[in-house]
């Protein structure tokens, strides 16, 4: 009975021969390691998806609130000068009041 382990060392894949009685044990340890990595990846993916779901609710609220804030400023007679500061609109009708 024999088993080959494969490891990445300094960017290169290095294979090692494991023979005799320890081959079975080495194969089992490698399988446990693989399972743990898969479980870790799954758990990280689930955590990431949960965080993204929470963030998407805030992003939607952020968009609506941003629109509303701009609308409030426009309704109050302001306009945004070149995507920068908000300035009072010089409106002829308002000046005549």
């Amino acid at each position, binding site marked *: 009975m024999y088993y080959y382990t494969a490891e990445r060392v300094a960017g290169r894949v290095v294979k090692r021969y494991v023979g005799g009685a320890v081959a079975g044990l080495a194969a089992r340890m490698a399988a446990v390691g693989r399972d743990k990595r898969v479980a870790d990846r799954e758990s990280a993916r689930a*955590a*990431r998806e949960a965080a993204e779901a929470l963030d998407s*609710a805030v992003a939607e609220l952020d968009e609506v609130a941003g*629109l509303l*804030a701009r*609308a409030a400023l*426009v309704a109050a*007679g302001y306009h945004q000068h070149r995507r920068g500061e*908000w300035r009072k609109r010089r409106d002829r009708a308002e000046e005549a009041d």
Partner: protein
Amino acid sequence: MTEPKKPTELAVPTTADGVRDLLRRAGQGDTATVPALRKLLEDPTNIDRLGGDLARSAEAGFVDALAGGDLAVREAVHAKLAALRAELLGESPTPVERLLVGRAVACWLQVQDADLRAAGSRDLTFRQSEFNQRRMDAAHRRYLSALKTLALVRKLAVPVLKVNIARKQVNVAGVPAG
């Protein structure tokens, strides 16, 4: 000599899509939207319908994530949120201010969530660490932006909107009966 054309007044939209469209046009500086906007912003139910549910669901999601099943943590988070909200709302806030405060509170929760997740994670890959770092940075930026917008609206728009509402109330009160 021809008189300059007055922009045609828009009606206050009754659907959520219509309201969003009106807000987008206003955001692009369309002055024809102003009368409809003023009417829309005067009514608290319009603002609540537009963003109230979003604020509540975002907040509830973060509270669940932070507290889980721990009732003590949940109560502590709710107490902190109430204090933060009271501090940001001030006295007699307008409906717009209420929604902007709701956004700031949700953003504050997002900052806490991002910081806690990053601090509590171990044995991360480079990509996972990078995701956490980007999330923290984005949450902090969004929170600061929410506070800045609240301050800007409070400084520039709220005085004008409050005067408009007050004028309308005087006018309504001044209408002779019959």
